[in-house]
């Protein structure tokens, strides 16, 4: 029996594709897994494999045809012993009338399995589970699959599930007709608001109500708390600390600044951002991201800058620092810090990056450690510049030093690697002409 081959949906958003090239010609033997055509989607040109063995009996859509709709028949595959003449009048038939066994295609089904309010983004909930498994029947059968797979869930339960990233695919509901309700989701999370409250109450009992003021945590505070908690409980981290002389760096900086107007002055931070980028290129393990099953090594250096806000902090990210000069770094930083203070940063301006810099020097802090901002690999804590006596050639002189502390994710950065990174930073800070390299 012949099999109709349809225009496949090669990406979730693909609605039409261009048939770039037929690799197989009519009459060619085709094995399952063999490439039969090249198809251009909205994203790329992709190779299209046959899912079955047979003979390419008839090409219905010629090479070079553009805007072929997904699920439009493009070819007929014949089984052993079948004759091309059996398919003579096929060209005139509509897709729905093709009286042949239909080859199913993996079909991405968006938003059909969950009912409810349309505004909520279902992506988290749906991502990996939404591919209907290949079956031997399509069209009507596919529809009934979709229907069977549809999950009934109350709007409230759905929202709680999405916000807590709960997979509902295998959850059976206790509401009417198996509808998933809040209770079912809460059972999964093992969270009962009453429990949270009673936990609170035991803490509240330690303090005299007349002696404290109470303020509900706002969203930003909750996000910070959640991320830091995650970081401290999930990232095995360690710290390395060293002092650098910054006399030479300051000298160069003063020279530069003396030629710049006040608004354009460079601060020690601008240099540190640049030097961090250099060290990241030198020690690529630091410029990496840990995933449970793999590690990403980044080609560019995106560096976060911790900015204290009235009620919290945020780390806007300066992108591609390796391609930028000090002036460009300064300009980027100025814009981002202003936006951060006005709470106008868009998520793309503070998400990602591999390292952050936190500088508490202006508070006179000598040295300190910070908590890694996930998914970053590490964070630098910069202390205040201070004068210390140093012995050079058996003579005591005065030098300006600054403490740098690296807190690193040990999964990505072993101790010696972290040490190489921070000591290279020291080398550049103390010999800033290296920045010209």
């Amino acid at each position, binding site marked *: 029996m012949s099999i109709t081959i349809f225009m496949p949906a090669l990406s979730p958003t693909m609605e039409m594709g261009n048939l770039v090239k037929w690799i197989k010609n009519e009459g060619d033997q085709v094995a399952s897994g063999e490439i039969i055509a090249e198809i251009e989607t909205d994203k790329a040109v992709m190779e299209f494999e046959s899912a079955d063995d047979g003979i390419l009996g008839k090409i219905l859509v010629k090479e070079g045809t553009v805007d072929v709709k997904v699920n439009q028949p493009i070819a007929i595959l014949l089984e052993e012993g079948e004759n091309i003449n059996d398919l003579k009048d096929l060209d005139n038939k509509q897709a729905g009338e093709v009286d042949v066994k239909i080859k199913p295609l993996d079909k991405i089904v968006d938003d059909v399995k969950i009912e409810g309010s349309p505004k909520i983004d279902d992506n988290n909930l749906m991502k990996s589970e939404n591919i209907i498994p290949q079956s031997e029947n399509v069209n009507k059968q596919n529809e009934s699959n979709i229907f069977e797979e549809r999950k009934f869930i109350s709007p409230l339960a759905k929202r709680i599930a999405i916000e807590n990233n709960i997979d509902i695919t295998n959850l059976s509901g206790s509401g009417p007709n198996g509808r998933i*309700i*809040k209770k079912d989701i809460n059972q999964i999370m093992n969270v009962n608001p009453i429990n*949270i409250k009673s936990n609170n109450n035991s803490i509240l009992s330690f303090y005299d109500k007349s002696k404290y003021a109470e303020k509900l945590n706002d969203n930003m505070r909750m996000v910070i708390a959640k991320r830091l908690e995650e970081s401290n409980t999930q990232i095995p981290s360690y710290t390395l600390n060293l002092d650098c002389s910054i006399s030479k760096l300051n000298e160069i900086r003063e020279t530069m600044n003396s030629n710049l107007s006040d608004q354009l002055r460079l601060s020690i931070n601008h240099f540190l951002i640049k030097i961090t980028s250099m060290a990241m290129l030198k020690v690529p393990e630091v410029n990496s991201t840990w995933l449970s099953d793999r590690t990403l090594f980044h080609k560019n250096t995106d560096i976060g800058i911790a900015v204290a806000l009235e009620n919290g902090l945020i780390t806007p990210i300066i992108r591609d620092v390796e391609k930028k000069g000090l002036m460009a770094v300064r300009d980027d930083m100025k814009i981002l810090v202003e936006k951060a203070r006005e709470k106008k940063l868009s998520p793309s301006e503070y998400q990602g990056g591999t390292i952050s810099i936190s500088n508490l020097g202006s508070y006179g802090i000598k040295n300190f450690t910070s908590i890694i901002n996930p998914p970053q690999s590490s964070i630098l804590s910069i202390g205040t510049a201070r004068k210390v006596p140093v012995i050079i050639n058996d003579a005591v002189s005065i030098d300006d030093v600054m403490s740098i502390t690296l807190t690193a994710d040990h999964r990505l950065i072993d101790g010696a690697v972290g040490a190489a990174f921070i000591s290279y930073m020291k080398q550049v800070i103390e010999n800033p002409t290296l920045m010209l390299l």
Partner: protein
Amino acid sequence: MEFEYDVIIIGSGPGGYVAAIRAAQLGHKTAIIEKDKLGGICLNWGCIPTKALLKSSEIYTTMKKSDYYGITAKDISFDFSKVIQRSRGVAKSLSDGIAFLLKKNNITHITGTAELVNGNTIKVQNDKKETKLNSKHIIISTGARPRELPSISFDDDIWSYKQAMNPSNLPKSLAVIGSGAIGIEFANFYNALGVEVNVIELAERILPNEDNEISDYAIKDFEKQGIIFHLNTSVEKVTKIKGGCSISLQSNGNSKISMIKAEKVIMAVGITGNIENIGLENLGIEIENGHIKTNEYMQTNIDNVYAIGDVAGAPWLAHKASHEGVVSVEHLSNLDPRTIDKNNIPGCVYSSPQIASIGLSEIKAKESYESVRIGKFPLLANGKAKAISSESGFVKVIYDNKTGELIGAHMIGDSVTELIHGYAIAKNMEGTEEDIVSTIFPHPTISESLHEAVLNAYDMGIHY
């Protein structure tokens, strides 16, 4: 063993008769035993006849201010006996309606007093005739009766709701003990007819089960209508004097006793379950705080014996009893019914203004949820309320800030008892704020206030 009946129900109030009809629908051979009139307290002495009375007082109040609407009416007065008569007539016709429904569903109606002999046998006493019936399942829906205070008992001058809705003459003055729904409705009714009304409440606010803001708003409105309230006050004793009663009051934290006089006293301090003389002890059915203990399917500790409605505990509401009746019958029919969430049971007070609520009050919501959002909308800002000059009242909603769960809704004002179901549906379906925000409410209606209150909670209010 073959049983005469599949289900026998003791008591024909809104719990019992609904259970009977549902049982018959599901094909069970069903009987219902009632010692008095069909329909129980609700139909005969509660919900329905009081609403009839309140309609009369409402019309009277409206007519007195008819001039405001440009309508001239002279010599407005009322015939109290006719007011009472109409109320009784309504109760009678509805009770007759239950008889018709039972007949239509082939339910055997047995008159008499029932007593459980064992898990399957009921003894029915009618005059001197005693019969024994047996049934596979038994549902107890014997209801409740008004509670008395330790030192004060009901008599000709100290009324329960039953006497209060069927008096021979209109008293000149009245003291109402208790400011729950029943107390407030009678206070409102008699006050509207020109009776001097004092209400005594032990708690620090009236309608103590409602949200604080509702209580505060309600008391101001009722005081404007002329009702006198004594809060934080207990009744020490009621002494009979010439022409009525003298009531000794004691304020909390104040040892001084003050006295008020009233021709009649209405005692509305709650109800107590009818658990006596029905043979519960013969089966060892468990009792808890004066009501029969059940599981979520209304099953007692004896598997085939169920208890529903007031006798199975608070809240004492007819609609809760009816719903429990359905749950119990569907459970004994192995239908796995959805159980009742008490936070989804609306409560109503039919005074003027009306009061309706569902879910938790603001105080209770804050005890159980980390962060809540409150939305309010005054009827003053509602076009329809203005058009009909019913601008008193407001709608208040409480949402879980985190999830958008509707935790509670509280309303006071014209016709709010007819509107609370909107929130009840949303709550029962677990709709979030978004579902109400995106719903189109008809204009001009007071129901738009339900929409606006939710919009207000999410800083999207249009008219307020």
